[in-house]
């Protein structure tokens, strides 16, 4: 199992690599949602060189919801990635698969629509399409993740650590609300310090609006310290997403997981969970959502 991270800068890659990261996930905001940082094509090229030197892998996040007007630009970007010889490309919209197939690079694609890869058959379906891998949905239990992995026919990844999003609207919901309720709204666009609180729930959810619409996240970030040793036997890639955090946080979490993969350190898992419990939880790993009940 490889550990993938979302670096905040090209300069942090070497440090993260030293701590144990195997894969670096970068993206450009034009073609991706919910990035920790938007990298230009020049920076991505620079990162490619650094990562190659280190003998590690570069994945690109290209998880936009594709609209017709984006097709031409996405085709150009995919051609750029093809020339750059990236090791993996995450996509969430089947249109991206179609474009990549025309370019003959579907074999580096990883399907991550976040909510749609929910059962063992999905790996079978997607292996027939000749892609590299898929990311299991966010609301799937540990038991189901393990079961999907035992039947997998391609690389399987999960986002095992980080703030998971739970809502994406094409609508400019923040802009519209502030246009309705007050005069100014510009300073609330692309503002990642906003949170919403539902009237009877004592939880606050990070929310922001960007060019792709409005995104809402879970209150607590996910951590899988106590699960990593089960997951390592099944998963191909364990992703640590640093959204709303920083490089120090990524360095710390990567080194924690790396340490836990050593048999002598396994007893530390519960300690790490304890240290992180204030703003982290186990997400849906042990929580089955209710099927078919109103």
């Amino acid at each position, binding site marked *: 199992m490889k550990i993938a991270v979302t670096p905040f800068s090209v300069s942090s890659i070497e440090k993260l690599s030293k701590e144990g990261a195997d894969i670096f996930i970068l993206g450009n905001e034009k073609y991706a949602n919910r990035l920790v940082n938007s990298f230009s094509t020049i920076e991505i090229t620079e990162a490619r060189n650094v990562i190659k030197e280190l003998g590690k892998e570069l994945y690109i996040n290209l998880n936009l*919801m594709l*609209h*017709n*007007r984006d*097709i031409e630009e996405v085709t150009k970007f995919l051609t750029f990635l093809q020339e750059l010889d990236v090791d993996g490309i995450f996509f969430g*919209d*089947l*249109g*991206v698969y*179609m474009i990549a197939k025309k370019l003959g690079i579907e074999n580096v694609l990883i399907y991550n*629509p*976040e*909510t*749609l890869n*929910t*059962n*063992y*058959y*999905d790996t079978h*379906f997607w292996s027939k399409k000749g892609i590299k891998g898929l990311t299991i949905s*966010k*609301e799937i239990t540990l038991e*189901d993740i393990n*079961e*999907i992995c035992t039947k997998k026919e391609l690389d399987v990844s999960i986002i095992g650590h980080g703030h998971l999003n*739970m*809502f*994406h*609207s*094409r*609508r400019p*919901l923040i802009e*519209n*609300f*502030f*246009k*309705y*309720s007050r005069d100014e709204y510009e300073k*609330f666009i692309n*503002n990642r*310090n*906003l*949170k*919403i*609180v*539902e*009237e009877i729930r004592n939880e*606050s959810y990070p*929310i922001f609006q960007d060019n792709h*619409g*409005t995104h*809402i996240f*879970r209150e607590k970030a996910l951590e899988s310290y106590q699960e990593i040793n089960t997951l390592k036997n099944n998963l191909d890639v364990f992703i640590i997403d640093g959204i709303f955090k920083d490089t120090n946080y990524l360095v710390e979490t990567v080194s924690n997981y790396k340490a836990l993969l050593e048999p002598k350190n396994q007893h530390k898992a519960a300690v790490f969970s304890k240290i992180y419990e204030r703003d982290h939880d186990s997400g849906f790993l042990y*929580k089955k*959502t*209710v*099927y*078919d*009940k*109103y």
Partner: protein
Amino acid sequence: MKKPELLAPAGNLEKLKIAFMYGADAVFVGGKKFSLRARASNFDIPQIKEACDFAHNLNKKVYVTTNIIPHNDNIEGLKDYLKDLEEAGVDAIICASPIIIDTAKEHTNLEVHISTQLSNTNYESVNFWYEEGIKRVVLARELNKEELQELRDNTECDMEVFIHGGMCVSYSGRCTLSNNMTDRDANRGGCAHSCRWNYDIYEDESKLNDDELHFAMSSKDLQTVKHISDLIDIGVDSLKIEGRMKSIHYIATVVSTYRKLIDNICDDYEVDLPKYLLEIKKAENRLTSHGFMDGMTTINEQLYNMRSENPTQEFVGLVHDYDEETFIATIEQRNHFLPGDEIEVFSPNFNHLQFKVEEIKDTEGNILDAARHPKQMLKLFIPFKVSKYDMLRKVK
């Protein structure tokens, strides 16, 4: 000019019959298994068969939703269920998960449509499904008319477009608000509509909204009377009305309005838009807007302050029979009304005639002071001919 299919929701057999009577070409229903909208009174297999027989006699169609995104535990019985649907005679199933799509393709001859839950927003993704042998894609509700035209120009796949009803504010199928806030899985029929709840919005620790005005994301319902002509010109294959949970009055009003509108446009009659707008308002219980039809949504497409309107007219009864000799109608009560109330009769042929209620009698001939019991059969004098399935509305 190709006349598109008018596709209506049907929460039960009565609603299905009403939808057809009032002009739907096809209906979609939920089955007992593998379907979202768990709370809609879904059909079992014998009911689906009855629905298909009824529809096929009228040369109309029934589609069944099998649109959950199943987890490992939810797959048992899938093959047999799909075979049962095929046996019952359904015209297509509406799917969102590869395992359901492939099981249908491998083990049945069912026609497969791709659900809006897969948020197909571009012609490349629609063509993905077309190359998989899929005949029709129900498009994402985020598309504007320009994008629909580009889709039409770049795909052979049948395009189904929502024209009326409730809207997800999120990209459909990509939302787990309900899962996170209530443990109910939105993609397996449990959506708690958390996007319609009230929130406060903060920047760091400071609250940005007033106490009187919550941060709201809730969407107005879709209503596209003014856009139907353009959608027909674009060449959309099916125009879809949402709302398997809605009343028969809602279905009758909405379906008959769009039916008349589509027929008028396609037959090149003059289209009296204000008349249709007025008519469709009678079914409104939430404010409406055109959604994304004209481009990005604005404050006019959102619901703030939980602004809501009641229907301007109230559904009070359904006609079961009429005696042309005595001018006495037998009706089934649906809401309270009194002698002296002004009533509008509304029928599948889009005629609207009014009368004033005189005596209200029960079936034994007893005179009642009011029609107060739901589903009670009543006798009323109506001075013009009415027919079974006509509806009575109180004029406010």
